[in-house]
């Protein structure tokens, strides 16, 4: 390496903010896009994804780049947030038909969702630096998909924060999630009304910094 290259590298390290790519993963309808939208709205440029009750509304990853989140102690992280399609072991077009979508469009949606999940799983290999794993706190945290996904994330040695979402609902139980995954930080939140989302930001700074 020449002298000018060394000097250039020192300058880059001094002034370049390291940006981590944080993927929001989780089953369909856990609230991933709601969280991504909230982060984008509170810390950067605006809303990115469409939120819907229909599963697999996010069929292609959405990305909000260069978001700097600052904690109460002044520490901050700069991240790209990647909102991924809901991970699942089965995709069936009949799920969409139940929501009044026509058969041909339902089949197309199922195909796109499958491509989206395959793509998001591939990114865990090389494109993602950390994971926010979202679980609906009213659902069973021991579901096969959660156990598999947390295992896969651990095998990739990726830092993970588990968000126990939908605490605004009466049958939500963040404690069940803490019991299921005691080895990871679990933050109870309600993305829809913003309850304790600042706790999630603090945990993200601690875990991903």
């Amino acid at each position, binding site marked *: 390496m020449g002298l000018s290259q060394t000097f250039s590298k020192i300058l880059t390290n001094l002034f370049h903010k390291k940006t981590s790519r944080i993927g929001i993963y989780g089953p369909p309808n856990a609230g991933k896009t709601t969280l991504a939208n909230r982060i984008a709205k509170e810390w950067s440029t605006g809303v990115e994804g469409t939120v819907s009750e229909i599963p697999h509304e996010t069929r292609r990853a959405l990305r909000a780049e260069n978001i700097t989140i600052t904690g109460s102690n002044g520490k901050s992280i700069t991240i790209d947030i990647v909102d991924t399609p809901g991970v699942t*072991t089965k995709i069936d077009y009949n799920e969409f038909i139940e929501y009044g979508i026509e058969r041909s469009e339902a089949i197309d949606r*199922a*195909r796109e969702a499958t491509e989206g999940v395959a793509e998001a799983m*591939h990114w865990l*290999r090389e494109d993602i630096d950390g994971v926010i794993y979202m679980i609906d706190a009213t659902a069973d945290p021991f579901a096969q*998909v959660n156990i598999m996904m947390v295992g896969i994330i651990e095998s990739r040695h990726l830092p993970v924060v588990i968000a126990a979402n939908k605490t605004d609902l009466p049958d939500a139980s963040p404690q069940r999630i803490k019991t299921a995954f005691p080895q990871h930080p679990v933050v109870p939140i309600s993305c829809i009304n913003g309850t304790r989302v600042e706790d999630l930001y603090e945990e993200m700074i601690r875990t991903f910094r």
Partner: protein
Amino acid sequence: MPHICLRCKTRLEAAPGLAPRCPACGGTRFAFESPRKAEAAKALESVSPISEEPPQPTNDINIPVETRQVEEKQSEPLTPESVESIRIVEPGKYDLNLLRLAESDDRVIQVGKDGNFRLDLNSMIRPKKKR
């Protein structure tokens, strides 16, 4: 003796009388038709007309022709140990092997409507990012 009205082409099985008039259009001019031609014409009439555009075989999923029950595949369920990363049960129904998708060098970039999927060969030969 079969005759054909020259005005409206109506076939009369009996010969017209002395003051012939076509019962369909009132025409008065007729042509004689030989019995053999009359038989051939009758045979043609009994065959349903052929549509101008014969239906083409198609894989279009939009055609609602599936009135039969699709038999559920009695294959082994997809498990993390399976070598398949995606199983296409039928168009619109997919089993995904998350472990295989996360660990395999194959990169699925498109699931086809015809039961195939495309792989990104470049991603298989790229060196993996070191952690």
